[in-house]
């Protein structure tokens, strides 16, 4: 979530990045991103 917040500040500015609605969306996205990235896959084939 820290990394996503840093990106949000860089792209949308401090004021927008601090708004509650965006904060909530950032936290929710960070949680699902973490979950997806935690899941191992293998063996690696020729996809995608």
């Amino acid at each position, binding site marked *: 979530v820290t990394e*996503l917040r840093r990106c949000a500040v860089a792209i949308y500015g401090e004021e927008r990045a601090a708004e509650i*609605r965006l904060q909530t969306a950032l936290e929710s996205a960070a949680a699902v991103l973490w979950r*997806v990235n935690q899941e191992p896959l293998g063996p690696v084939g020729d996809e995608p």
Partner: protein
Amino acid sequence: MTESTATALHELTASDAARLIRSRHVSPVELVQALLDRASALDPHVQAWVRLDADRALEAARASEQALASGTEVGPLHGVPFGAKDIFDSAGLVTAAGFSPYASRVPARDAEPVARLKTAGAILLGKMETTQFAYSDPSRTRNPWRDDRTPGGSSSGSAAGVAARLIPIAFGSQTAGSVLRPAAYNGVVGFKPSYGRVSKRGVLPLAWSLDHVGLLARSVADCSLVLANIWGYDPADPHSDASQPAFVVDEARSSPPRLGVVREAMEHATPRLRDHLQAVASRFEQAGARLHEVSFGETLELILAVHQVTMLTEMAAVHWQLLEQYPGAHQPRLRANVEVGRLLPGVSYVHAQRLRRRIRQSLRRCLAEVDALLLPTAVDVAPGRETTGDTSLQAPFSLVGFPSITLPSGVDDAEHLPLAIQLAALPWQEARLFGAAAWCEAQLPRMPAPPLA
């Protein structure tokens, strides 16, 4: 109306209306006028319609009547009115998706599903309320069962309109749970076919690889009738599947199905819905169905995370330019999630798609020994109007593209709100799904109309 059509016109299902119109027991003009009158009486409260097309609908109804009088061969849905969520393009009629910059957007041609239904003889009565671009900011539509509860979303107008008997059938769309959940909250049937089965040409996108055209109706037979007239490859839609097998209506099936009760869904539902599903499952078992406990083979948490990463990324790709072009025009949740979706790394999206393929294989295995999966449609009855509800039990089938259907299965005594069960089948097995659903429908109590209607 004659003696043989003692049912009020607004109570007719699409299948009944088609049959009675064809036999000339019901006039399409009278049916359209009855629904327009009902809209005048009830829709100021329900707010299911965003735009009626009364003049053209009546003109089409008169033409339908003349065709019957002259003995012209007519289509399977001749003279039957339908509605379309306001993300489906309609020729000559504004399609705005709840987005104010589109308030004057008039498409030149119909979305393909609308065009195909018209070719089958059906009459577009108007456009139905949607949450903005079919996302999760609540629309103005009211749940006809209770004013203080959401009708669900994003196909809120289509579901509430069908429940309130404002229209027998209406198109909706589902990216997470936007057909089945509002159907469940409003006490009607909601169906989405396999991904690629029905063309999306002319339907405004939210997330391309998840978006499905769906239907709100009051019977399984109506879903089958509509699908029979809209399925099939469309070379102009890149998501349409050229290799899909034919959809063949199987009206003969009446044997009890084999159903797999999904463990992860039961664990995720509230005690109210879990108890309800168990009671319904017992009823089915006593009537001859064979029930098995099955597992998705993946955690629901992972399935939903993969869905969410996919949806956020694709939503951002669909909307970021519009967001810059029309600053301030997007609803707050849509705007925030598009902004966040833009920040997600590409490698995570690709990883999610690889996981998605694994999940699809797991769900195929889950369905190997049964005709359909059985699970609650939603985790609970309709919540308050500040939300459109929880997508977690509908989204798995949007992610993998399997067909799914929800049936109203009772009314909760304490809340006075509809309860619903969901069935899902393997890709392209809509006929098998409808067979199982029709059998289940016959075992369930008849769903009453909502108090408002």
